[in-house]
């Protein structure tokens, strides 16, 4: 028993040949990718939600197309398509125009694509959250001469957050797991690191458990953050039950 515990410790040691370091740096890139994609998604989603609610018909149809298609297309095909085929195509056009070929960072492309997808989901989450704000509060803001930006910052945002946070938290949770997709452009995050370690050592169980714990740690920390934000934005709300 002691020997096998020793074995597990060795396996998880942060220094090679232990895999702890690999897992940790995998977790770090998972966080970096997810964070980037989440922020891009937030920006796109906010714009998308406001656009959909703006009542401008062409814009609304365009965004409808965005949310339907982008959510439907598998992320893999988006990343592979954009990074390889898209860039290939561009470079060919550049070559015809006698321009130098360019090289995009695959990592950046993957983050951008994941962010783009997150944006589509967030558009719907935020649209729902805005619709749940009592319309009178927005009218009051208009009546006092607040412009759209001020209105958004001071009234709509604080009022939509309580409604949107659970959906946003869900998206964050799933992006931390979807980030595994960056492997197709050659980057290694937590999920891939786990599989590598498992395949090399055949100690699948140990590593899956270890990475589940790492994911859980990420979750617990983000849960605490989301909860703190929610507590803050729900100030002024009476208890329901």
């Amino acid at each position, binding site marked *: 028993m002691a020997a096998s515990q020793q074995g597990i410790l060795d396996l998880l040691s942060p220094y*090679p*040949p*232990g*895999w702890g*370091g*690999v897992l940790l740096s995998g977790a770090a890139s998972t966080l970096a990718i997810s964070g980037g994609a989440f922020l891009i998604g937030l920006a796109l989603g906010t714009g998308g939600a406001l656009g959909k609610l703006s009542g401008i018909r062409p814009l609304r149809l365009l965004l409808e197309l965005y949310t339907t298609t982008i959510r439907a297309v598998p992320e*893999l095909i988006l990343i*592979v398509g954009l*990074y*390889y*085929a898209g*860039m*290939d195509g561009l470079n060919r056009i550049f070559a015809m125009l006698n321009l130098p070929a360019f090289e995009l960072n695959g990592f950046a492309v993957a983050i951008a694509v994941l962010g783009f997808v997150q944006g589509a989901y967030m558009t719907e989450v935020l649209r729902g959250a805005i619709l749940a704000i009592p319309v009178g509060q927005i009218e009051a803001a208009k009546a006092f001469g607040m412009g759209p930006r001020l209105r958004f910052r001071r009234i709509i945002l604080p009022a939509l957050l309580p409604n949107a946070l659970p959906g946003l938290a869900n998206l964050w949770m799933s992006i931390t797991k979807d980030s595994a997709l960056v*492997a*197709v*452009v*050659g980057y*290694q995050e937590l999920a*891939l690191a786990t*599989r*590598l*370690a498992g*395949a*090399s050592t*055949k100690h*699948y169980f140990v590593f899956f458990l270890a990475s589940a714990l790492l994911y859980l740690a990420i979750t617990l920390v983000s849960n605490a953050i989301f909860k703190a934000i929610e507590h803050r934005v729900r100030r002024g709300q009476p208890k329901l039950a």
Partner: protein
Amino acid sequence: EVRFGIMNESYPPFFAKDASGKWQGWEIDMMNAVCEQMKEECSVVELSWDGLIPALQSKKFDVIWSSMANTSERSKVIDFTDKYYNTPSTLIGPKDQKTGATADDVKGKTIGIQVSTVQSEYYKKYFANVADEKTYQTLDEAFQDLLAGRIDYVFGDSLALDSFLKSDAGLDCCAKMGDVADDKDVLGAGVAGGLRKEDTDLKTKLNTAIAAVRANGKYDEITKKYFDFDIYGAN
């Protein structure tokens, strides 16, 4: 310079990444030998399996060197070098099961097979009418199900199955049921390097190098490090 594309997941003993990020294994040694022979600088690009073909086609690297078998379907899309190894296909199953690897033996049973391997083609041709297939992403998963009794056989590459049979779990439960009868059409072409169709120069260069490595004894030397038998297979 020649850039080799390798799948970024481990497939020991052919290629595996250790915790410090270094690649090693039979196929890596073979790659180095071939490079030495060609007197070329070599580098490794690692990608997920999904990314290999598009990356090859958009020139992120030049050769797929990742235990990819040359099948007729695949060679419609990319070109292959001459094979550099090929191993028989084997059935394994629980010890108490009757040995044998013909269609009669597997009648009414369930066979676990890794997705898109030559064995899956073989199954289609010889076993599909008599036995059920379960498809796995990796053989390790198939072994788990064999242990759990959810399938009766695992059908795969003999090397990988051997190493399972030698493990603790494998020793307890299972045994080799036998190699299947060879069929060059589905099993024969062997593992080779994948190339863009237009890179014919590189193809000749690699083929020459592979032949030379085999001829000068380097091939056997590398093989001996990992296996106690020849893996080149029949000519």
